[in-house]
């Protein structure tokens, strides 16, 4: 009797257990790939791609564009008119492409905040690679974020809480971070 009951049960369980929803070779969206680092597991944009506005999915950058701070910006010598593609720019446009006032050193590689000294982006984010310089003290208006960024306050970690807010790409401030407008 025991064997018969167990057999019935196994007949049911085996087909149920065989159900598989996930394609192990394709666990991320388009233009994304998986990363696993310590307690993190998720999808990041492929090289040459940046998150879409709103954070859903990634799109490859266009011609004469490169990824800076997880956004597609024009290469040096190119500029974008409105939402159009990057095209050769005149001197005035070229000057404004990457170097918005108050954001010097932003996303520069660093190993400690000493590497960021002398720039506007004085905080070196070292929690996890890639480490980079970010503009801090934006919550109280001491520093202003670039037009494509927003001020993100994260109080859960003392190291980030002490920054008084860091400038991250728009739509990229996730809980427990909070976007603040000074």
């Amino acid at each position, binding site marked *: 009797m025991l064997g018969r009951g167990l057999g019935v049960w196994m007949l049911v369980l085996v087909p149920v*257990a065989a*159900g598989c929803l*996930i394609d192990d070779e394709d666990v991320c969206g388009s233009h994304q790939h998986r990363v696993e*680092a310590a307690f993190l597991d998720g999808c990041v944009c492929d090289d040459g791609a940046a998150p879409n506005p709103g954070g859903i999915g990634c799109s490859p950058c266009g011609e004469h564009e490169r990824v800076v701070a*997880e956004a597609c910006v024009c290469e040096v010598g190119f500029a974008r008119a409105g939402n159009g593609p990057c095209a050769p720019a005149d001197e005035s446009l070229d000057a404004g492409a990457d170097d918005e006032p108050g954001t010097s050193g932003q996303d520069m590689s660093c190993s400690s905040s000493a590497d960021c000294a002398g720039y506007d982006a004085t905080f070196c984010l070292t929690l996890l690679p890639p480490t980079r310089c970010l503009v801090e003290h934006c919550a109280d208006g001491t520093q202003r974020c670039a037009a494509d960024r927003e001020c993100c306050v*994260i109080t859960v970690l003392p190291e*980030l809480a002490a920054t008084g807010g860091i400038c991250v790409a728009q739509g990229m401030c996730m809980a427990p971070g909070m976007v603040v407008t000074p």
Partner: protein
Amino acid sequence: MSARRFWALYIAALAYVAPLAAAQAQSPVAPPNAAQEPSPIASEGAPAQATVESAEQQPAPVVTPLVAAEPLQLDAAANPAATSDEMVMTELAKLGLDAAADGGVVDTSLKFSGFADFALTGVFGREGDWRGAYERFSAFSIGNFNLYTDKRLLESLRMFGEIRFTFLPNGTAPPGAAPGDYQQTGAEDYANFKRPVSWAGIYIPRVYLEWTPYRFFGVRGGVILTPYGIWNVDHGSPTIIPVQRPFVVGQALFPERQTGIELLGQFDIGHHSTIGYHLTLTNGLGAVNEYRDYDDNKAIGGRLYWSFDGLGQLRVGASAFYGQDTTAHEMASFAPDGQHVVFTQKIDQQSDVLALAGDVQWKYRGLHLQTELITQQRRYKDAARPGSSNPFFGRYLAPSDRLNWGIYGLVGYRFDWFGIMPYFLAQFMDAFDPAAGALYFVNSFFAGINIRPIDVLVIKIEYNQSHFPRGFIIAGDTQLGQVQVAWAF
């Protein structure tokens, strides 16, 4: 590990272990009917020895007392004052609650019962890490105060409800805030010279109407606890052997509760064997699944179990759930004619979820063995996979399609002497929690003593330790010491 390989290994292990465990038992002592599932009423009340530790909710077309103790009864026939109150009777009649000859009420009593628990919990370890994240200092608390309401409308028709009274949300972090950023629910009490009072909330785990014309067929409609595994439906704190349920149950890889329809029943396939089933059709997942479905894809689920009482009490079950998890909001805009407002749904997150689980429980004399394996596969829609800047990663991160899973095993032995049961529980879980933005890759053990001096009272003394091999947002292992008193009423 791929999902296919994982399941293949589990099934192979299960096929090996289950008959071995049964064969090693010495002699059957259970009466012939011992394997039959207890009635749902008894399991929900759960005060008695036989029902506190195990119950598979089943339809029972006979009227059964909710609890061993005398329930509170609002019985008009037993209360002369009530029968003489014509206004009350008139109101009841308007509700169809008169004792008419054809239909109406066969049992006019409204029964209340429930459970509650009181605990002392303390975190061991260094200052500043888990102490701050969980509780800095050991504290007394009432964890659950759940009230069951049971009303039999006809012989085969009844309603059942469960309400949890809770001190929440006072003292918790509001959504989106940093952990530990406690909110207060203070209000001025107009009945007490506007002195401050902390208001609290209620949570409704289930409320449904059940019709059970036959033992092999019943149907429920309403908010139901998802019929899977062992300790999701039998969730009362006197029933749970440790202080808390294992991580993988609490992680809700299956939805804890759903709103919809459930078919259920059981039938015998031999002198000692019974097969039971549950089938569900519900709104599925979602933040407000109690009354809203963000997509037109209803979730389906089911559970099949086999119980055998030839060698103690053995129960083996398999459960499944498939549904779409959608988070969305409506955006209002003007229609092209400029005279009306139209709404467009904006989907914030959408994924398909397939949850599968297996469970085995074997009780032989004082021995209690139990294991559950619970899995969840989540596949996101490409256009609805929300990512954001992860503060721990320092850059954009979106959730990947993933197999989340966990398993636990519990062994205990109940002595006759004071009803003492030493127990040990080992568990492992590998699950990504989007809310925390981190992976719960954790192994843990609970060791403790469960004492049941009387049927309706349980005292638990427990130590548990958890280790995160891949690290966690909070450094170090967790070590908890807990004492809990749980009782049914």
